């Protein structure tokens, strides 16, 4: 395995999620939510979901890495 793909996926989604959540919080009174998304602050919901997914991916990547490091030591 060359590079664990969960690392870039986790990082990208955590960063995007964070950016979108913060933006959603800052614009929580904005007119655009009434105009576009049926008065739902879609940014906060989507952003939080992205962060959860991103962190989960990062967690899986780190866990796999630490397993790999332990395996040769055990032998």
């Amino acid at each position, binding site marked *: *395995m060359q*590079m664990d793909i969960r690392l870039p996926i986790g990082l990208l989604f955590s960063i995007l999620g964070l950016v*979108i959540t913060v*933006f959603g919080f800052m*614009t929580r009174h904005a007119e655009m939510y009434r105009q*576009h998304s049926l008065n*739902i602050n879609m940014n906060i919901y989507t952003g939080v*979901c992205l962060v959860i997914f991103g962190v989960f991916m990062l967690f899986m990547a780190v866990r796999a890495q630490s397993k790999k490091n332990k395996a040769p030591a055990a032998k």
Partner: protein
Amino acid sequence: MHGQIQVGPIDYSIMVIYIAFVLGIGFVLKRYMKSSKDFLESGRSIPAWITGLAFISTNLGALEVMGMGASGAKYGIATCHFYWVGAIPAMVFLGVFMMPFYYGSKARSVPEYLKLRFNEKTRGFNAFSFAIMTIFASGISMYAMATLMQILLGWDFNFSIVMSAIIVLAYTFLGGLTSAIYNEVLQFFLIVAGFIPLVFLGLKDAGGWGGVQNRLHAVAAAQGFAPDAWSRSWAHMGSASANPMGIEWFGLVFGLGFVLSFGYWCTNFLVVQRAMAANSMSAARRTPLIGAIPKMFMPILVILPGMIAVALTYQSGVSGFTLKGADGVINYNNTIPLMLGHYLPSGVLGLGLTALMASFMSGMAGNVTAFNTVWTYDIYQSYIKPGQSDKHYLRMGQFATVFGTIVSMGAAYVAASFNNIMDFLQLIFAFVNAPLFATFLLGMFWKKASGNAAFVGLLSGTLGAAVHHGLTKPEGAATLVKGGWLGSIVHTYPSEMAQNFWTASFAFTICFVVTILISLVSKANKTDEELKGLVYSLTPRIKETNVPWYSQPATIGIIVCAGAVVLNLFFW
């Protein structure tokens, strides 16, 4: 279009973050690219869940996403047949029955398998037609992306072409096939993340699935069909005139479900290459099976939005969404962009646009990486310069990446100036591809099929497709690209789709019969020993003793098939 979408700085920032990641992945992977095998075959080192997602992602280009949305609006839930009938069975067949021969033989590409199994000319025919096809497919993707960006965001056409070419070139040049596969996985998750909010808001606007169904009754009634013609997938397939697709069940099952879908999923190197990059035989076999699971549910993300859109157009929802332009005409092709612009506020909008951009680019990258492999191994190494060092072929692979991208840019401009030329080329490729599955089916499961028979069979199948297309036309066709160019019209089909399905069916049958007949009268050109590992009856069965029963290919295959059957019955 209603004009441009309101895009803010936050949306551009999301796009920029994504592009930075794509290039970053390329740079990190660069140091692993030491041999032509690393670059063109990913060193056969990737786990099954990644190749599985890449497998369906390569096919989920933006043209597919937008096309499925448009069809969902135009034909309703019957569009799901492209997934539940036109993909799942073929993917299961590839994983369970065909993958052992692709992965187990020493072939590095689909054309190379044809050489090992049949002969040089069969391979040459496939390699050249495939190489040209991928370049044009990549060019069409580029053209479509530039057009969309121009309409949506007001970007300059040339700027979009050059920008997308540079980004795709950068990451495929640096990280080869691995880079392309990684980005396809990234794209898969982006599409999911960007489209779930869209579907959620659309459903809410229409009052849930029940609300959509009620509105679809009005859609169907207004167009003169039975009320549930948009919301039931099989009930109206008895005759071609009863459903909006204009196709009856036999043409659908045989043409789409068998010939076209098996031809695409089982013999197209673009997708098969993903499975061949897997790190073991078992992973290669599980690749299409794992891909099939999300594939079954893809219609929720790509077809349902179209159905919601057309439902709301006929019976307005709370937010007043409509597909009708200022002139009151429904523009089906813009279904997805219109929904993105209507429902997503700045922020998630950037995410949705990035997902679309990602799928355009990975569509291009997929074609470029398939092209450079076929070019390097099947054309350059076989016909131009055999017997060079591996370093030489690695260089050639990298050069082919640059060369392929530049030629696809050319193809994008060709598409921009002569729309008919593109239609014409796609038609020729359809003729070439339609009979291919017959050749593979006989090659893998009948050891008597001979090299010459396969070649002649392929040619006559291609010719048969052309003749069938020349003698028939879909109702209301205006140009000769649509058919009927041989002068007399023998049959008029109710729709273009019906004509396509039947063209493919004829091509398959002709190739199948001709190959069998010639094989019976000619002598086999390969000994049984040479065909070991290439033909079913001469290859020892694989016993996957180290894999638990629940992750055996046959088990996953059965579960996936059962899932597809349940979906078909549920939305009957």
